[in-house]
């Protein structure tokens, strides 16, 4: 019975972006369960992503954590009234994942390695949908590999830094405003490259019950020097649109997060995070084609910095079971008249729940569940004059294992 349900859900929905812009905040099932708080929490190895300062307070000598999520999301577009046109994205299932491994070198120093996917976006609107001249489908994924070092100054204060090596991958298709008997011309754009950045954080245990954290993750500008553009155009225009290389760049924006964790009772932990995302780095998406006959493409984005407000709670039901719940509000970086179907952002509210089951004193099973409701947004992209109402929903179950000894 369960299997049938799961299959049906799989068919109905697909992967979509889960947070605003193309940031994916699903880098730890425990944090996800608590509204994705974490900067002020001591969550072991996964602190490397949320606040590397917290890594210095690792409880055991070794800790490994591995997990992933499945984003069942759907975007529906309803064309600007009066119109009966509606389209829904039919997105492939994708799975953001994380791996953390950490080891205490001595009382003061801890090292670790994390592999995370904090940015990504995968949307398939279809080859023939009405907005095909803006985008047909896009797949964007960044994998962050981060060696991390944390230092515990004393029992109250720790800090950490990480070096981020980022592998960015993009693949998108869009139609071109030229037709042949076979239909619209189109272009495929793809590329893969490496870029680098860092993160740093500090954790301060103000008292037995109160923990404060401040975390910074630098912007990473992913610069593609040699992408491939593959044009499918009518034969008579093939000379003007040869397959060519292109240059482009896309920022992975900076994050500054301030978090507070407060142990209200032995059983109840509360957390609050304020997260600032430096989206203003995303000014435009430009493609500079090598072939001189192919006109360069400039696409204004003008994203704005955003805030995310997070609240979370953890309740120790019994020795072996922790239950979690959380809520957050994620504001959109996309200003009016700049909303594209490639990143159909809107203000989003997330409701989460989570559980950890301690199978034994070394192994924990972590589960989380997140429901994201996007406010319906009636807007569009002025340079293309493509307007309508976008609806966004997502449900994201996640599962992970933590092993420590």
């Amino acid at each position, binding site marked *: *019975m*369960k299997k049938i*349900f*799961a299959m*049906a*859900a799989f068919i*109905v*929905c697909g992967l979509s972006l889960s947070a605003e812009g193309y940031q994916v905040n699903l880098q730890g099932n425990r944090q996800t369960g608590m509204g994705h708080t974490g900067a002020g929490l001591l969550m072991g190895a996964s602190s490397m992503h949320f606040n590397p300062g917290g890594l210095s307070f690792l409880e055991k000598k070794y800790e490994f954590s591995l997990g992933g999520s499945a984003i*069942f*999301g*759907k*975007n*529906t577009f*309803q*064309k600007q*009234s*009066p*119109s*009966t*046109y*509606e389209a829904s994205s039919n997105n492939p299932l994708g799975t953001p994942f994380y791996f953390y491994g950490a080891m205490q070198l001595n009382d003061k120093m801890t090292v670790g390695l994390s592999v995370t996917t904090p940015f990504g976006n995968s949307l398939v609107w279809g080859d023939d949908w*009405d*907005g*095909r*001249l*803006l985008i047909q489908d896009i797949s964007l994924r960044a994998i962050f590999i981060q060696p991390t070092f944390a230092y515990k100054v004393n029992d109250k204060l720790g800090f950490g830094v990480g070096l981020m090596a980022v592998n960015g991958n993009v693949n998108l298709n869009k139609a071109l*405003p*030229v*037709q*042949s*008997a076979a239909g619209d011309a189109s272009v495929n754009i793809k590329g893969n490259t490496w870029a680098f950045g860092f993160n740093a954080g500090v954790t301060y245990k103000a008292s037995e019950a109160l923990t404060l954290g401040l975390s910074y993750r630098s912007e990473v500008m992913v610069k593609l020097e040699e992408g491939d553009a593959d044009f499918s*155009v*009518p*034969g*008579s*225009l093939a000379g003007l649109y040869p397959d060519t290389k292109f240059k482009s760049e896309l920022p992975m924006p900076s994050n500054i997060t301030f978090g507070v964790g407060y142990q209200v009772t032995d059983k109840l932990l509360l957390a609050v995070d304020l997260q600032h995302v430096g989206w203003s780095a995303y000014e435009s998406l430009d493609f500079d084609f090598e072939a001189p006959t192919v006109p360069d493409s400039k696409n204004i984005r003008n994203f704005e910095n955003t805030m995310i407000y997070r609240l979370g709670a953890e309740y120790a039901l019994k020795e072996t*079971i922790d239950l979690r719940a959380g809520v957050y509000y994620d504001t959109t970086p996309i200003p009016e008249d700049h909303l594209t179907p490639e990143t159909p952002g809107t203000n989003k509210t997330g409701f989460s729940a989570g*559980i950890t*089951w301690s199978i034994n004193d070394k192994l924990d099973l972590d*589960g989380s*569940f997140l*429901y994201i409701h*996007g406010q*319906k947004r009636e807007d569009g992209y002025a*340079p*293309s*004059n*493509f307007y309508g*109402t976008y*609806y*966004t*929903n*997502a*449900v994201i*179950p996640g599962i992970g294992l933590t092993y420590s000894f």
Partner: protein
Amino acid sequence: MINKYISKVAIVLIALVMWQCEPKVDSFTPSSGSADFSSFVAIGDSYTAGYTDGALGQRGQMESFAYILAKQLESVGSKGFNQPMVKSRGSVGSTVIDESGSLNGYYELSTASGSLAPVPTMGDMAILAERVYDASNPFHNVGIPGAKVIHMRYPGYGMANPFFTRFASNPVSTTVIDDAMLAKPTFACLWIGNNDVLGYALAGGESDAITPHTLFQSEMEEVVDKIFAEANGVIGNIPAIDAIPFFNTVTYDALVLDQATADMLNAHPNYIAYNQGSEALGLDKIIFQAGSNALVIADEDYAHPGKIRQIKKGEKVLLSASGKISDKEIGWGYMQPIPATHVLDEFELEDIRDETMEYNSAIATICDNEDIALVDLSAIMDELSTTGLIIDGNKYTDTFVTGGVFSLDGIHATGRGSAIIANAFIEAINKQYGAMVPLANINDYAGVKFP
């Protein structure tokens, strides 16, 4: 126990996935407002008929603005739109006829001549001889290529225009308007008057005639009285026809010469003699230079006894002259003047513009008096020829071949151009009648097809 608990939670969560992954959409509901669209009839000229790429055929008939409009009206009560469909898969036109008289089918883009250019295909003359009238099934599309407003009430117009003969109830005696009333329109769309200036313009102002605006107005009033006696409806005004690609693709300085050819022409006895005359009369000389030159045209009214001059910026050369300009054996524009039949000079253009303005003020007055929706196609044409129109990711301009709106004859619309026109009609209808007729998706229709 834990296992049981987890599986219960899993079922609840999966049920949540099922229930929540599809966003709830507030669907759009079309409405007819105060209008009755049950019998929708379109009356007009080649644009209404679906003439495109220089000919009439099924493809264009299924992408005329009138047909697209009718399709959108289906959701608000229109009960069908019967068109006088061409029977064959072929096409036939009146604007392209070569010496053999057979190359009058659709233009197609072709690289056959070495560069990408529109070339006419074989026409199907049988279309002009066929009879598609059926008394039991009156036509809702009464669009007749070449028709002017002064033809609408003309008995026996079917004898003068084979495109009407095809489907007139009685070609010898009926009028266009009488036939339009056969479908008992409850809602009518009228876009007529383009040819009242365009016929003259396509002849370079040398034959045909602009319908005087006083006559235009009185005929229009009669036509409107008849069509809209029982029906609501919408009327389109007349765009600036001199902005279409047919009059703007060959630029005034399209004559590009190298130094040797310029020297050769300047040394030609005819030009030496002409320039001596110019000097004596105090008129402009014709001196060629390397690079762009203004084309030489015939002008019967010019003060110089040679009756030729260089064309001025702003005056128009017809698209139909382009072949003979680029043909070095013929050499229109420098070896011999471009005939006046292929040129619109400043006076002819002024007449066209003045009369078009008068037509449009007459149409506006009529719409105002009769409470009929008015479509300002003139404003859309102005936008197209200045800033261009950006719609759903594409920029449309009045540029020939690549602009997206005009078909390969440089006069009529592509499918997408027709859809843009249809949407302009829908917006005017919605405004006038408080209706919510859904707009057409422009990208659903075809533009110029490249080989």
